[in-house]
């Protein structure tokens, strides 16, 4: 029966199969799948847009800022923002200064724009360093096991016990007057301290992934084909454990930005610069510290950087939540 039917219609079937191949959608990788889930999430898209805008503002602050952030205007101190005609101190606003001016008559909007440089850099640069370090350490210790793994685990236990912020405060207080503390207006020391503590979380998560992945069949298959250890680690295990790393990255960045703002507010972050050639002039934390005394006279000194910090941090949180739902749909809605 079957032979009778199939035999004469071979040509037809082949044409049909060819049709089917034409009809099927282009194959999509898992990453494309995750991406399409991510851009369906409205909050994440808004978050991404805000992040792109602030990155752009940070890079081109020198072009966008209406005034020189360091220019002191005598007699124009504490001007209110433009939409308020007369401020609480009786001074009339000037349309040239959108958010008003600070004690010395410096433009608040320009200073806030320059502050984005510090926050965006603190968000991205140390995070990038700790991803690299943490991933490599986690891969090796999970794959090789043994003594290195033991040491790593004890180390992470201790790191977890030390409250991060206290460590940063102590480092910044004690080493601020040294040569290292003055490099890059104090940012070098800050980045180092953040990186020193931050890699532990990544190492732990990559180690956990590696431990479970290295028992999988495809790793065994790769080994049978004669793949070297480093090839297995970096070509097979690493790409498969990237999901949790990406999620943790999006959650780490706002933590970094907040830490910098807190330290800046305590007067321990960026050392505000007076040299117009410097890339980093002021930070949002430092601006809030300066504005604190003028809370009644010119609240926008405080509000402008506070709103900026909140926006950026919220944007990263939205993106992080979206990434978690997109990359690991099982976790959707939890936490």
């Amino acid at each position, binding site marked *: 029966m079957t032979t009778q039917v199939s035999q004469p219609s071979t040509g037809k079937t082949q044409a049909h199969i060819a049709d089917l191949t034409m009809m099927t959608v282009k194959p999509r990788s898992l990453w494309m799948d995750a991406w399409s889930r991510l851009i369906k999430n409205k909050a994440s898209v808004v978050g991404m847009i805000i992040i792109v805008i602030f990155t752009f503002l940070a890079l081109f602050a020198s072009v966008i800022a209406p005034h020189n952030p360091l220019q002191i205007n005598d007699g124009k101190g504490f001007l209110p923002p433009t939409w308020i005609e007369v401020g609480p101190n009786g001074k009339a606003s000037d349309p040239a200064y959108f958010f008003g001016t600070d004690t010395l008559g410096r433009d608040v909007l320009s200073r806030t724009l320059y502050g984005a440089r510090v926050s965006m850099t603190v968000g991205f640069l140390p995070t990038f360093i700790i991803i690299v370090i943490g991933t490599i350490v986690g891969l090796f210790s999970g794959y090789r096991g043994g003594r290195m793994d033991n040491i790593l685990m004890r180390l992470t236990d*201790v790191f977890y*016990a*030390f*409250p991060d*912020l*206290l*460590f940063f*405060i*102590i*480092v910044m*207080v*004690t*080493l601020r*007057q*040294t040569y290292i503390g003055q490099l890059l207006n104090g940012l070098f020391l800050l980045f180092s301290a953040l990186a020193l503590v931050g890699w532990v979380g990544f190492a732990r998560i990559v180690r956990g992934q590696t431990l479970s992945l290295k028992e999988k069949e495809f790793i065994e298959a790769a080994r049978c084909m004669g793949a070297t250890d480093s090839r297995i680690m970096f070509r097979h295990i690493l790409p498969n454990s990237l999901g949790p790393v990406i999620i943790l990255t999006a959650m780490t960045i*706002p933590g970094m930005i*907040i830490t910098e*703002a*807190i330290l800046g*507010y*305590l*007067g*321990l972050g960026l050392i505000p610069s007076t040299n117009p050639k410097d890339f980093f002039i002021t930070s949002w934390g430092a601006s*809030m510290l300066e504005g*604190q005394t003028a*809370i*009644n006279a010119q*609240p926008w000194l*405080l*509000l402008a950087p*506070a709103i900026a*910090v*909140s926006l950026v*941090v*919220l944007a*990263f*949180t*939205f993106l992080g*939540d979206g990434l978690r739902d997109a990359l690991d749909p099982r976790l959707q*809605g*939890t*936490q």
Partner: protein
Amino acid sequence: MGKFLLRRMLWLIPVILVVSTITFVLMHAAPGGPWDRDLSARQVDPATQKMLNTYYGLDKPLWRQFTAYLIGDIDSEGKFDCGLICGDLGPSYRQRGLTIQQILFMPPEEKSIIYSRFGYSMRLGVYALLFAIIIGIPAGVISALKQNTMVDYLSLFIVTIGISVPNFVMAIFLIIIFASTLHMVSIVPRSWDEVSVWILPAVILGFNTMARTARLTRGSMLETMRQDYIRTARSKGLSERVVIVRHMIKNSLIPVVTILGPALAALVTGSFIIETMFGFPGMGRAYVTAIGQRDYSMIMGTTLIYAVLVALANVSVDVVYVFLDPRIRLD
């Protein structure tokens, strides 16, 4: 159970050791001594500096200073001076004649310990935690019961803001709204004996914990609602109220209860910026002042107390969990 507790408590020793070593090394790597003044101010003359160094034992070798701080040392008269293991945190370099533990734990005049700096911070932490629980748990329960409605979305929105916006930024917004614009409270009150002045700092401090509690309660409720025993409870004809209160809420609060210890520790140790903003007479403001004055022994002592509090709180999670959830084995 006793053995388990003991093992967890022993874990505190390496933690304290590591924290104090790191702090000690960093303090001594810092340029300048504790007697340095700002360049503009009058300097302490070398002879006095030498006397002070001898008095505080700063002329001894480093390892001996470290052991003296941790365990104790024999002074010039042959008397043993006990260190950290007896709870002695050493003298403050800036507030002459006072030890760290006196500054932090001694109440003014003859009042009880709750009027000491530590007591003030503890009270603020407890009030903030109360606020977090009283608002956070009902918010989480309601938003789980009304999942995917406007109420749920509104509460999720507030929770997201509460979790991501740091508390000192939140403080800036709330102070500007309630103190400088509406004039409902004064920013730096003259006395902390009235109840009303505690509200704003406690709410700000507890906001993040409130948001976390609400999110955790919601997640845990959603998980419990789908359990088989809830279906059983409904099918045997229990009223909806009994199902919700006795079965859902009771079971979904287990993870919430376990975070209370760490939450309190985080509130007490994380309050230093809020305390500084409100001029609060607590441990946190003393810590920030010490940072400004480079009072190294004070910074070291406070850091150690903070670290111990956090470590103790982490131990409390394991212990409370074992009590509440019989499914968890001790090791």
